[in-house]
């Protein structure tokens, strides 16, 4: 596949433009033929993509694959027991295929409602703008979806699946936008990445964010993860980081930023990634006044002990976890060891970056043997507390119900 195809991509999502751009991927369909007696198989991965086996070869053995196409995978809560999420435990959520992009050829173009269209190579980004480093949450809008009863459509992330908090290295999006000169009437920025689908008609994944968030100093154009290169599956060579917000805004394989006067109109803005203002009855349609998913509500998880861990009676257990909120700050985390009848306040480590999760802990000494549970619930600085179960919504977004882990105390 011609690597240069990434250079000329625009935000023009007309079918014709897209057909031309991904013409080479059509070859995939030849592999899609199926023999009469066999179960139907989807077409094979086209050229210019990274195989799932390569991606998963770099991941932790405990990572659970939820879908092979598009690839989605995540680790259970106890594998997040790190200050920052290591690369091999960072969740995978593709909408399309994993493109294999040549960093040396790659450019980022800024266009739309700007005074001057500009484009930068990776070297130019590093040279022209201050390079920054921040630890920040990235969480799929559908993270935790399996907590909803009944189960809505979408990737069946476990209640703590589909999120992570690595260190990101890059430049500030606002610096890049200022280099192009944002026009006064502009209000939004849309990112577009170089991922493509198996068939030419697959719509490109384009999301826009309000300029206020784009200009926030922690919103980055990222080229590194955990102080090393950005892995291919996580957007190599460039991605957006829109910290604390629904993950789909953090465009991977970023090649174009389009400054817009109004939110981008497209299926990934108008049909997907929408959440009702209030709960709806399961099975009912999305209300017409549903909102675009933006900042994640307050949430937490217990990372130690692991589910089904075994302890001896008399032993102290340092129950530990992570708490975060999309915008704002964690004010309080409480734990319960009696299914929510009584709660005790956890210690919180607050000396971390603005959008990073907070590490909390409580020392617990079980009074009797048997099966014991720990529940965690966080409260943010605006007074929002995690509910026992999140409000049901048709696409299963923003699950932030109280996390519960069970373990065994032996006599």
């Amino acid at each position, binding site marked *: 596949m011609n690597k240069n195809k990434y250079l000329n991509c625009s935000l023009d999502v007309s079918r*014709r433009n897209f*057909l031309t751009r991904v*013409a080479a991927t*059509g*070859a995939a*369909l*030849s592999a*899609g*033929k*199926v*023999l*009469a007696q066999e*179960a*139907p*198989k*989807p*077409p094979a991965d086209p050229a210019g993509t990274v195989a799932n086996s390569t991606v998963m070869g770099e991941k932790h053995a405990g990572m*659970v694959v939820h*879908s*092979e*196409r*598009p690839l989605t995978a995540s680790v*259970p809560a106890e594998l997040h027991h790190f200050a920052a999420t290591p690369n091999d435990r960072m969740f995978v959520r593709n909408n399309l295929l994993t493109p294999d992009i040549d960093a040396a050829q790659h450019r980022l173009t800024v266009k739309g409602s700007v005074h001057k269209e500009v484009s930068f190579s990776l070297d130019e980004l590093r040279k022209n703008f201050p390079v920054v480093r921040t630890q920040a949450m990235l969480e799929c809008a559908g993270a935790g979806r*399996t*907590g909803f009863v*009944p*189960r*809505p*459509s979408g990737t*069946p992330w*476990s*209640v*703590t699946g589909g999120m992570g908090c690595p260190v990101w290295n890059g430049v500030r999006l606002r610096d890049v936008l200022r280099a192009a000169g944002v026009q006064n009437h502009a209000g939004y920025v849309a990112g577009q990445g170089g991922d493509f*689908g*198996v*068939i*030419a*008609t*697959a*719509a490109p994944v384009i999301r826009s964010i309000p300029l206020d968030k784009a200009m926030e100093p922690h919103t980055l154009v990222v080229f590194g993860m955990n102080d090393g290169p950005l892995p291919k599956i996580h957007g190599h060579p460039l991605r957006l980081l829109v910290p604390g917000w629904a993950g789909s805004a953090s465009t991977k394989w970023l090649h174009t930023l389009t400054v817009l006067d109004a939110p981008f109109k497209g*299926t*990934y803005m108008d049909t*997907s990634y929408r959440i009702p203002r209030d709960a709806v009855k399961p*099975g*009912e*349609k*999305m209300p017409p006044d549903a909102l675009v998913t933006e900042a994640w509500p307050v949430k937490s998880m217990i990372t130690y002990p*692991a*589910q*089904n861990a075994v302890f001896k009676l008399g032993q102290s257990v340092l129950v530990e976890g992570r708490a975060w909120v999309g915008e704002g700050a964690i004010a309080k985390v409480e734990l319960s060891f009696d*299914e929510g009848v009584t709660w005790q306040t956890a210690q919180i480590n607050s000396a971390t970056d603005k959008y990073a999760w907070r590490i909390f802990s409580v020392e617990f000494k079980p009074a009797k043997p048997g099966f014991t*549970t720990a529940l965690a619930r966080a409260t943010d600085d605006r007074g929002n507390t995690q509910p*026992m*179960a999140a409000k049901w919504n*048709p696409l299963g977004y923003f699950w932030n*119900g*109280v*996390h*519960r882990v*069970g373990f065994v105390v032996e006599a």
Partner: protein
Amino acid sequence: MLAGVLLFLGSTVIALAQDDPVPPKTLTPGKGVELTTARCVICHDATHITRTKLSRGEWEFNIKNMIERGAPIAPNEIAPILEYLATYYNRDAAAPAPVPAATASAGDPVTGLLTTHACTACHQTDKRVVGPSFREVAAKYAGNSSAAAMLAGKIRQGGSGVWGAAPMPPNAGVPDADVRRLVDWILGQK
């Protein structure tokens, strides 16, 4: 990861964290399974359907959503696909017994070939999707005595430029007998 035992305690709404068992990787055999597979199991694997039972309304929304995302589903195919999904993957009603593949596939044998060889991922009889409709192809080559050999070559080797920039991929593995039947059938579309 953890022992694959689902633990739910008492009547609580908070299930202990567990990942789902792996859902079936193929669709339940039944009326409409070929069409549903041909149109849906392209961009995503079958688990996207088999993993979650939904209400009929949610399936309807999903089909609309997938068409917006580029699924090659013609307007007249929405109803049969919805019927299949709402029959076999319905949260509100138990699924009937699967219909064995031989019975489900009964009908026009060429229709089976079109699905089996994934022709229908890009072509439909009366409507241009990714590639030209079969009727357009038949009309273009009507009266052309070398059309059958040329089309057989197109199926085998692929090509592009005749109907636009999107390429027809090569399909070297389709048996000769199937190619002949497909070409005869395509040229007979009016």
